């Protein structure tokens, strides 16, 4: 593209606008990179769905409603692949994670934007960002080797000792549980949530806050009645973005959830998620109908997380345009 520079310059000087016909190599290179990514993205979606189709055809609705996961081996007709436990486990752990992350994250963002002295803001913000720099497998190892024993020795017995503790939380088993998985996930998605919510809260116009305070509202009233309502669309988007992250997290969950294919609803019971089940069953599934079933779980996960991701991006950009208006 540099060989033609002089011509290009002359053309530009003459006020010649590059039409589609006379687009330079530069434009084509840039456009083809963009096109390649679009193709890769489509191929990504397509190939996962394609590999999922045989399982969808054979298992049908059982993929969504069944709780057995039995490979028929050489006779695929006997195979039963039900994903209900994985679906519920994914929802449960993500919900636990999101509740913790939203409560703690909103508080953190408020503190960073409104409470902390300015020199501490950067430190606090960096601290939360650094949480995102720790690889997932490290959280898994930490959860498995440090937190799980704590659940057995302290947290579990405490929750069980509460009135009705066994009925609500379930009996503590091996430490690895839905609760632990949700907790670890919460830490992992916290930086995502805080990054957006901090921006959202920071973008609330100062005049609004000052007006509220000058009318005699306390700091909390200003937060509750002015800041949060102004930022609710963006905060929802931040929550959705964090939810998307939580849905698809894999290795950390494998190590802390207990990998039990059961329909469990109590936080101290073990469970399984879509992503963690794919990872743990992959080895023996390769080349069999079980692999297609795992792809089907993957397709489900893809639909859920891409959907959530899409919605969250829309929400966040809507918030940005709301504030900028």
């Amino acid at each position, binding site marked *: 593209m540099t060989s033609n520079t002089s011509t290009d310059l002359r053309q*530009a000087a003459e006020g010649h606008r590059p039409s589609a016909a006379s687009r330079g190599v530069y434009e084509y290179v840039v456009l083809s990179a963009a096109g390649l990514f679009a193709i890769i993205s489509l191929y990504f979606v397509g190939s996962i769905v394609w590999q999922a189709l045989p399982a969808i055809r054979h298992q049908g609705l059982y993929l969504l409603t069944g709780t057995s996961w039995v490979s028929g081996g050489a006779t695929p007709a006997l195979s039963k692949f039900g994903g209900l436990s994985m679906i519920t486990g994914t929802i449960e752990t993500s919900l636990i994670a999101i509740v913790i992350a939203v409560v703690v994250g909103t508080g953190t963002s408020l503190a960073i934007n409104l409470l902390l002295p300015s020199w501490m803001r950067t430190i606090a913000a960096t601290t939360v960002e650094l949480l995102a720099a720790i690889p997932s497998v490290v959280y898994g190892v930490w959860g498995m080797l440090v937190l799980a024993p704590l659940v057995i020795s302290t947290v579990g017995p405490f929750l069980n000792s509460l009135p009705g503790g066994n009925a609500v939380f379930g009996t503590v088993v091996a430490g690895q549980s839905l609760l632990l998985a949700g907790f670890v996930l919460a830490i992992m998605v916290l930086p995502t949530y805080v990054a957006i919510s901090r921006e959202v809260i920071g973008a609330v116009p100062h005049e609004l806050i000052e007006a509220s305070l000058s009318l005699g509202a306390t700091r909390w009233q200003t937060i509750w009645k002015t800041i949060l309502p102004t930022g609710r669309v963006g905060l929802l988007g931040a929550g959705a973005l964090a939810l998307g992250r939580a849905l698809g997290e*894999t290795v950390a969950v494998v190590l802390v959830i207990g990998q039990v294919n059961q329909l469990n609803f109590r936080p101290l019971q073990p469970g399984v998620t879509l992503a963690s089940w794919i990872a743990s069953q*992959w080895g023996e599934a390769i080349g069999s109908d079980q692999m297609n079933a795992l792809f089907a779980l993957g397709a489900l996960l893809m639909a859920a997380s891409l959907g959530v991701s899409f919605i969250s991006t829309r929400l966040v950009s809507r918030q940005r345009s709301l504030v900028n208006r």
Partner: protein
Amino acid sequence: MTVTIKDAEIREHLRERSVATLRRRTYISGVMTALCWLAITFAAVPLVAVIYQLLRRGIPVIVKSGFFTTLPQQPTIFDANNTGGVSNALVGSLAVIVYAALFAVPIGVLMGVYLAESTSKFASLLRIITATMVGAPSILMGLFAFEVVVQQMHVGFSIIAGSFGLAVLVLPVLATATEIAIRNVPSTYREAGLALGAKPSTTSLKIVLPAASTGIVSGIILALSRAVGETAPILLVIGGAYAIAWHPNQAASALPFQMFQDVQSNYPSLQNETWGIALVLVGAVFIISFAARLWAARKKKVQR
């Protein structure tokens, strides 16, 4: 007179009420502010706790002689502490990320340029696709890499399959980082270039891209340093090997992969080894991100 008394009563009553609500409001506000403080403390605790464990348990592992230079060993009942080192995983991780970068960086950056400069419908569609793909679960990249590289290209379980998964994972991140870096270049730069009679492409290449290069490069470094720690995209396709391997077609190990394997061992020595690997991974990511930020900040200062 009665009127005044009434008036005073009412005023007194109102005053009392407002004092009460004010007190209640102040009280609630105080409690809620305290809760915000609690939240930020809670957010900081995991980081401190993880780093504490990494240092306490990780340092004794990495100072062990041969940790970086020897191959891993399996402990046996005769030698329960025989864990060896991580040389293969170190080489494997480097190889995986280098091949991934070779693929992802050019496409990601060029695509970012397109996103920043184009106003076409395709660009806005691509922006949505990119934002959505950023949120795609990493395990799906493993499935995708298996389907494309292992099955369709018949390469088998290999470094390049892992690289492919990581590349697809970081592509949208790289594109977004590039787009932001370019958009951060003041529009006057571009206008000045065009006013001087340069073609838009020349303006981009000679003026805007150099001005954005700091942001682009630090974006690349940050994205790749995070990718080194990713396990899920490579877990399904890298194959795992005790040998040092860097050829794209070879199966290999990688640091996060080896952590995932070792922590599930029944030998405490091997489980303990994971703290060392974790320290290396986290240390590398922290140092690289810190250095990249510092460099970017300094470059910015110089430019101003």
